[in-house]
């Protein structure tokens, strides 16, 4: 009995699978034989590619030449760039360092008694005998002063550092992106901070202390390929103050004493050096160093941190494919909606449902077909734009934030997924509304118009735009972000600069949820209503 039951069940299963395959084939035939839809998909891919490449061919960055007394002359063509960190990411690496060589294992200890700052709102040094006359005092929350152990004084070197900050207490930071908090509170003569870094092989351990006797371990980090001889010493830096419309260079000054390097080579002296690239001179103020007795007074400007697009950075992300996708999106929404509303308009829906009475399965087959076709069109449209857009931008002298092969693939797939999921949302909305014009306008309003309001037009205040980009289908545009936002970096994190309120996949997830919810409602309505 059992022996005969089993094949029967698998027969029905096979028939089911066969049935769905036939439905898919039927829907694919419907799509393929409407010439207008095929042409529209070609147009969607072409628009994505063409608008994306047009966007990438646009910007041309110039550099402001800087003389000893501030900016001079008009911006000139140049090739700005960011240093590259140990993990291949773009970084800022400008600071003032007082260093000596440290061979093999060892440690360095200092006491910091003061950290003050100044900023130059006018855009730098004033001409004349008193170049700092426009400066206002005040320390930046992420101004940093402490000790660093770095592979070399070249920008982008591997490092670990213990530091006091202007407003975030003691931190241990390493290799640009790592950040661990230590003792809270500001530093002053009455409340100094002791900092210590210990090197043992590739491992660096940071300690902090309020009194120089009771030490707390803040963190341990392994720096691979650290050379035998490293540079160690006190450093100071202070990031630019930035707001949506304004920015200002800043500098910080710190006072160090009780500087001790027990295993220093005999006769080694302290040398001060300003770490910054020539092209970056406009992005930091000059630093200096004075030693009196055992006290070092160090002034520095810049930042040791991951770099990202923003008002003060020279670079831009290579996400122009998404501008193109924006153009392709409207076409895809029209076709996705018509894939169902045309059936209602022509009365074909009655034939379709007579031939395949399982209404949910009909809708599922339609979703699979339109989603796959759109995904394919999206890949074809985006595949040339992401790599070619980046090299077009570079050819025009722009700095493009580096992306790995995997990121490129993700961006291409992201554009295709954005188009595909939106076409399914349009299909579901078309099934719910049954009228093309209303459905298309609703989906365009929820995706294109919301994005348009929040990002390029930017009429909405940041809070409202963030909220819209979290809860509406336009959240899917977050998939284009590939340079992360860091809480320990002072920047303007807005969609205009390429930062979205949701993580890339989470944003696409919100769009998928909308499509899934619309499909569920569409299935229920399709089952309940007469065709």
């Amino acid at each position, binding site marked *: 009995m059992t022996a005969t039951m089993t094949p029967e069940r698998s027969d029905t299963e096979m028939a089911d699978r066969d049935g769905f395959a036939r439905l898919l084939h039927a829907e694919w035939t419907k799509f393929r034989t409407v010439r207008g839809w095929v042409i529209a998909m070609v147009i969607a891919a072409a628009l994505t590619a063409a*608008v994306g490449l047009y966007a990438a061919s646009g910007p041309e960055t110039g550099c402001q030449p800087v003389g000893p007394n501030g900016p001079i002359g008009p911006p000139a063509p140049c090739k700005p760039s960011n240093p590259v960190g140990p993990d291949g990411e773009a970084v800022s690496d400008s600071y003032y360092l007082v260093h000596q060589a440290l061979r093999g294992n060892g440690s360095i200890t200092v006491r910091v008694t003061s950290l003050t700052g100044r900023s130059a709102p006018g855009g730098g040094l004033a001409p004349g005998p008193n170049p700092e006359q426009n400066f206002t005092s005040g320390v930046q929350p992420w101004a940093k002063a402490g000790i660093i152990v770095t592979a070399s004084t070249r920008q982008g070197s591997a490092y670990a550092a213990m530091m006091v900050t202007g407003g975030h207490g003691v931190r241990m930071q390493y290799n640009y992106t790592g950040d661990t908090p230590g003792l809270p509170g500001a530093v002053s003569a009455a409340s100094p901070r002791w900092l210590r870094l210990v090197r043992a092989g590739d491992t660096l351990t940071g300690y902090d202390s309020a009194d120089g006797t009771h030490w707390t371990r803040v963190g341990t980090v392994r720096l691979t390929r650290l050379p035998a001889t490293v540079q160690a010493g006190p450093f100071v830096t202070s990031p630019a103050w930035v707001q949506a419309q304004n920015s200002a260079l800043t500098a910080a000054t710190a006072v160090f004493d009780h500087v001790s390097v027990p295993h220093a080579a005999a006769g080694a002296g302290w040398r001060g050096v300003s770490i910054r690239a020539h092209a970056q001179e406009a992005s930091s103020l000059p630093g200096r160093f004075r030693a009196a007795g055992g006290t070092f007074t160090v002034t520095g400007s810049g930042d040791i941190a991951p770099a990202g697009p923003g008002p003060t950075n020279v670079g831009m992300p290579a996400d122009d494919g998404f501008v193109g996708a*924006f153009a392709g999106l*409207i076409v895809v929404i029209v076709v996705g909606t*018509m894939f169902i509303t*045309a059936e209602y308009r022509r009365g074909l829906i009655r034939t379709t449902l007579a031939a395949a009475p399982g209404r949910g399965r009909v809708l599922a087959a339609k979703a699979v077909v339109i989603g796959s076709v759109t995904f394919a069109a999206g890949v074809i449209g985006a595949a040339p734009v992401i790599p070619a857009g980046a090299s077009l931008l570079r050819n025009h002298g722009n700095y493009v934030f580096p992306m790995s092969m995997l990121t490129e693939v993700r961006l291409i797939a992201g554009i295709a997924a954005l188009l595909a999921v939106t076409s399914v949302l349009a299909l579901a909305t078309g099934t719910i509304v049954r009228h*093309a*014009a209303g459905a298309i306008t609703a989906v*365009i309003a929820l995706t294109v118009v919301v994005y*348009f309001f929040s990002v390029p037009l930017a*009429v909405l205040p940041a809070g409202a735009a963030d909220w819209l980009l979290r809860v509406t289908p336009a959240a899917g545009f977050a998939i284009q972000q590939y340079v992360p936002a860091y809480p320990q970096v002072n920047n303007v994190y807005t969609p205009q600069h390429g930062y979205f309120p949701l993580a890339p996949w989470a944003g696409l997830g919100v769009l998928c949820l909308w499509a899934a919810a619309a499909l569920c409602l569409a299935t229920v309505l399709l089952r309940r209503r007469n065709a």
Partner: protein
Amino acid sequence: MSKALYAEWTKLRTLPGTGWLLLGVVAATVIISATVSAAVSCSSTAACHVDVTKLSLTGTYLGQAVVAIVAVLAVSGEYATGMIAATLAAMPHRATVLGAKAAVVSAVTLAAGTLAVLGSVLAGRLILPGHGYTPANGYPVLSLADGTVLRAAAGTVLYLALIALLSLGIATAVRDAAVAIGVVLGLLYLFPILIQVAGSPEVARHLQQIGPMTAGLEIQSSTGLAHQPIGPWAGLGVLAAWAGTALLAGALVLRARDA
């Protein structure tokens, strides 16, 4: 012509969707305008460089999409149901049919647009002073007695009517509602995106001057007119040219083609 007008008016009036869509025009415009007015704030004179007249009419960006639906459906609806055959049998002069449709659709759009704009300006007038946009900070209370505000408000009503005519022309040319609405919304929203990514400021300026939405909405500008890419009325003229071209194309296609 008056009989044609009466016929078109009856058709539009007796469609159950028309009333809801016109209500949608007013609701979309006023709600977005009021929300944006409520979302901005101005703490000091230096912090806010905002064209409050334009800001209070932000809802136009969305309201125009609903206007486009009304206009597209007035034509495409007839093709979808086959009604167009009866219409053209009853009124063989096709240009008259299109003219009557244009008149009726622009009339209802003007009516709905007037309500939408009055609601938006009223919302701005009531909300904005509470958010720091006070006469003390250099922002007089919005009033239609102010010539610039009146120009922006009346111009926005005309803008919506011209969007309706543009949509009507495109719908007549392409017949299918889905394609028509796609073309209209693409035309409206794509220009601002292209402007955003245009290579040089000159190209961006030219695109702003020829885009139906970007040029047309200059009618709402009340500050910095000397720096705008195109004057308020010239901008509305550009949109009128778009609408006229679309209507002409629609009329020619309608004449030449079987229904």
